[in-house]
């Protein structure tokens, strides 16, 4: 029988949750890197024992950890993230120029065909790449060097590059997203990039044609249709059917269209999931009810999924990288909360149970189907 391995990054370490295909009984291992912030843990799709973890600390900076045995043991690898050339400036919160400064790695995206190749999305926003299993990292400077770079501005969480999608059918095409610059696409393996934000409308940006400045929280894609993208923006859930060239809103009947994560069912490319959050001022679910919303129509028509989730007095948040799906026949959906719960649904969202209740605040959730 197949099994699953859930990789959880938290404010105080990493945890690995494993179960058989029934996803009812779970083993919990961790904390790995106890006491450190683990922004992201992700496995190589071609070598599922090869894991990478972003480990950081306000005191001791950034580390990258690598495992060759599915997280039983780890070794620190390269942690030198140096911007290519003269770093230059972006806009600070008050609109003044501010030097680019490396702070941490938010997201690690292993290559689809090489376990030693990984992309890293960092704060202040840039994209790095390794081809030697993390020993050395080099920036892909074409992104930060895009002419709009000096106009990028951090969101409240920092100017982070948090989303990296590799087109499964075209290895030269990638999508990334930055808070609060927006979404970008490369069609030449990262040498050059262009903003793909047409159709996004953001309060505070009066120009509807603004090339950058949108606070994109997360983008998701189904492997079978890489030109169809779903976006949870600061406000608004958006959809593109042309690889980001244009976007249209699909928030529909959501109780609020503010939120962080968005993901796509493993086998149904029009079935998508979000977790509505009250607002940018109130980072918790509306009415104290934790509800995942599912659309089976690619947006606009949404249903609340509540069975097994707390429906009173719940004031957690679900962060942008804290939702994932497995690829079992009955697709499993997973998400973690800032309250330390990791929930699983083994039936595409109809019913939920908590795998763990009391982890540190969850920053990221990834799933490997084994």
């Amino acid at each position: 029988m197949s099994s699953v391995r859930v990789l959880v990054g938290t404010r105080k370490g990493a945890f690995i949750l494993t179960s058989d295909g029934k996803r009812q009984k779970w083993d919990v291992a961790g904390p790995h890197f106890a006491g450190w912030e683990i922004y992201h843990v992700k496995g190589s799709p071609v070598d599922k024992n090869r894991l990478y973890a972003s480990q950081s600390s306000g005191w001791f900076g950034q580390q990258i950890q690598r495992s060759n045995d599915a997280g039983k043991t780890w070794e620190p690898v390269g942690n030198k993230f140096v911007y290519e050339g003269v770093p230059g400036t972006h806009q600070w919160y008050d609109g003044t120029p501010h030097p680019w400064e490396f702070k941490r790695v938010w997201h690690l995206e292993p290559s689809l065909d090489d376990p030693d190749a990984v992309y890293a999305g960092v704060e202040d926003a840039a994209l790095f790449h390794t081809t030697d299993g993390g020993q050395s990292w080099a920036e892909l400077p074409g992104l930060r060097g895009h002419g709009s770079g000096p106009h990028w501005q951090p969101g409240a969480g920092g100017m982070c590059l948090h989303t990296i999608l590799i087109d499964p059918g075209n290895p030269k095409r990638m999508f990334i997203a930055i808070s609060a610059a927006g979404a970008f696409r490369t069609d030449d393996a990262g040498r050059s990039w262009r903003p793909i934000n047409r159709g996004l409308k953001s309060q505070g940006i009066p120009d509807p044609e603004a090339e950058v400045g949108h606070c994109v929280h997360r983008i998701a894609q189904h492997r079978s249709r890489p030109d169809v993208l779903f976006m949870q923006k600061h406000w608004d859930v958006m959809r593109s059917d042309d690889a980001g060239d244009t976007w249209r809103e699909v928030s529909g009947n959501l109780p609020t269209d503010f939120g962080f994560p968005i993901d796509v069912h493993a086998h149904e490319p029009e079935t998508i999931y979000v977790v509505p959050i009250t607002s940018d001022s109130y980072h918790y679910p509306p009415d104290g009810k934790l509800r995942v919303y599912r659309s089976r129509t690619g947006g606009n028509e949404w249903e609340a999924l509540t069975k097994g989730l707390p429906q009173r007095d719940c004031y957690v948040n679900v962060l942008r990288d804290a939702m994932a799906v497995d690829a079992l026949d009955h697709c499993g959906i997973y998400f973690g909360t800032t309250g330390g719960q990791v929930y699983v649904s083994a039936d595409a969202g109809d019913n939920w149970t908590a795998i763990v209740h009391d982890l540190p605040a969850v920053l990221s959730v990834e799933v490997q189907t084994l």
Partner: protein
Amino acid sequence: MVRVALPAHLKTLASVSDEVELQVAAPVTQGRVLDALEARYPMLRGAIRDHVTLERRPFVRFFACARDLSHERPDAPLPEAVQSGTEPFLVVGAMAGG
């Protein structure tokens, strides 16, 4: 032999359980001690001082012989008691975070 005491998180990172002992050629300075430390434990590069500028990270402090050496020049000689191994060179994570 110079003794270096690391904070708990860096001991874990470097897989050491106690003080580290390093051979450091004279003159024994803060910079040379950190060079020797990072040569023995490459995973500590970037964790105590910046990779490129070699400036001390803001929330890392250096102490020895009941003195705060955090703002000493990297090429200033360390106290004799540190050079002789009588006293350890302390790398400390600053108390911060509320």
